[in-house]
């Protein structure tokens, strides 16, 4: 599959141009049909007039280019827009304004439980998750032994996943998400929930394909993890880019502002 798409070693993998994302707030009555009809009836311009709706600007004018080999950490306080930015990169939220271009297969790891059927066995869940990521059964069967090996779950893979602990689920998810050398790997902070031996194996695995031609974006509050895993940092503040650059500089500036 990757043969047809020769990785562009020095190329841009992720390109965001003037991206803004805003969420209309639909709570309580504003989400109901009645309100909307009444609005229309009274000559209100719903949908066109921003002043009639409460809009949360989650991301504002984000310009960002990531080259292959970049490992970016998204840092910032709660509600700074880290998860929203990850979801924009994953193509989940299409930008309200601006452009997004992603080169390569995207492998999102936002929720360990995505597509997990509690009653299915570990193997069946690996197959299901592979289907979600667009991996064909033949490709998967080739890689299955390797995935099974990486999870380290052995005979547990034949049991329903409802018997798994959170850490075991994490191993399973991570193994599938990374088994096909994702070109753009997007991770929310839960990755740091694994035990020490898993974390070190996960880092090792990521470094093997990052070197080939990939990009990783990690959103985390844990600055130590960010420093270990990433070479670049992006500090988000209220949906805007406050600082972008080498990880040490960004963390330094962020810590200075937090303690100040």
């Amino acid at each position, binding site marked *: 599959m990757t043969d047809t798409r020769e990785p562009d070693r020095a190329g841009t993998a992720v*390109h965001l141009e003037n991206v803004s994302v805003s969420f209309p707030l639909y709570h309580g009555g504003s*989400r109901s049909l009645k309100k909307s009809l009444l609005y229309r009836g009274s000559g209100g311009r719903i949908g066109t007039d921003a002043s009639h709706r409460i809009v949360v600007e989650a991301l504002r004018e984000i310009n960002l280019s990531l080259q292959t080999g970049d490992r970016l950490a998204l840092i910032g306080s709660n509600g700074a827009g880290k998860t929203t930015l990850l979801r924009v990169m994953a193509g989940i939220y299409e930008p309200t304004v601006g452009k*997004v271009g*992603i080169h390569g297969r995207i492998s999102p790891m936002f929720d360990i439980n995505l597509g997990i059927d509690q009653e299915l066995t570990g193997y069946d869940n690996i197959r299901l998750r592979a*289907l979600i990521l667009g991996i064909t059964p033949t490709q998967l069967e080739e890689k299955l032994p390797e995935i099974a090996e990486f999870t380290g779950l052995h005979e547990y893979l034949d049991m329903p996943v409802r018997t798994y602990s959170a850490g075991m689920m994490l191993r399973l998810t991570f193994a599938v998400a990374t088994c096909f050398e994702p070109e753009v790997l997007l991770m929310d902070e839960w990755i740091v929930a694994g035990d020490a031996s898993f974390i070190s194996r996960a880092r090792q695995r990521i470094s093997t394909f990052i070197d080939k031609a990939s990009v990783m974006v990690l959103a985390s509050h844990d600055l130590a993890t960010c420093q270990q895993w990433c070479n670049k940092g992006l500090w988000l503040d209220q949906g805007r880019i406050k600082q972008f*650059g080498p990880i040490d500089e960004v963390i330094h500036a962020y810590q200075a502002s937090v303690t100040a």
Partner: protein
Amino acid sequence: MTMTSPAPAHAAAKMPDLALRGRDPHKLQLAFADIGRGWAMWRLWIQLGWNDILQRYRRSMLGPFWLTASTAIMVGALGFVYSKLFNIAIDEFIPFLCAGLLIWNLISSIITESGALFTGSESYIKQVRLPYSVYVYRFIWSKIIIFAHNVVIYFAVLLYFQISPGWNALLAIPGFALLLLNGALTTLFVGMISARFRDIPQIIASFIQIVFFVTPIMWKPEVLRNHVYIAAVNPFQHLIEIVRGPMLGTVPSELSYAVVLGITVLNMVLAIAFFARFRARISYWI
């Protein structure tokens, strides 16, 4: 403030695998691309559709045949009472009731459950970019599986009353396909507006109950005598008839086909226009 790292000049030369932009003018193409890419992911939605059924009936002894059993009892009980009430021969009324009820169960479950199409898949939609049509295909597929379980009753009725619908029965296949196409389009449309306006599913639930009683399912249109137009103006009567007629060995009227084709065109225009316009908003709504 540090600037973003400079983008190499040749980057624009290679088409990105995923290109999105705000207020994209190619909305219709994107909608069709979604529908096509969703279809190509058949392995996924077939699997998910099966899992939906298995999940609901796991560890129950009869599984999806519980539905079959309850429908069978309903056909038997209603068939007996209503054939006496309307004074119709039971071997004529029960096949009519059975076919009608099976089709109605399919239609009503599609319409009432389609409100949760996107809101119920929030965990998927918020975690991974999939064509939205995948959720529609998955939903319709699981409805087909349930229908296939229920259709056993129809064959049992044919055997019991020693009826053969003849070759006309084959017409049920294109009729069923048309019914499913309309089901898919309605699901897409209702799924979207229900994600935006959360009271839509409630409205639909009460509407569907009324439709059941005013549509000839438990009663034959003939009992209306010179008020048959009451059945003829009901679009659901025609949607049911293009499948029920052939199942009972009769050829549906041209009027029925014309009405269903009209509904299909209308449905298609409405659903696709809506999908093109609001596809990118679905993930924001849920």
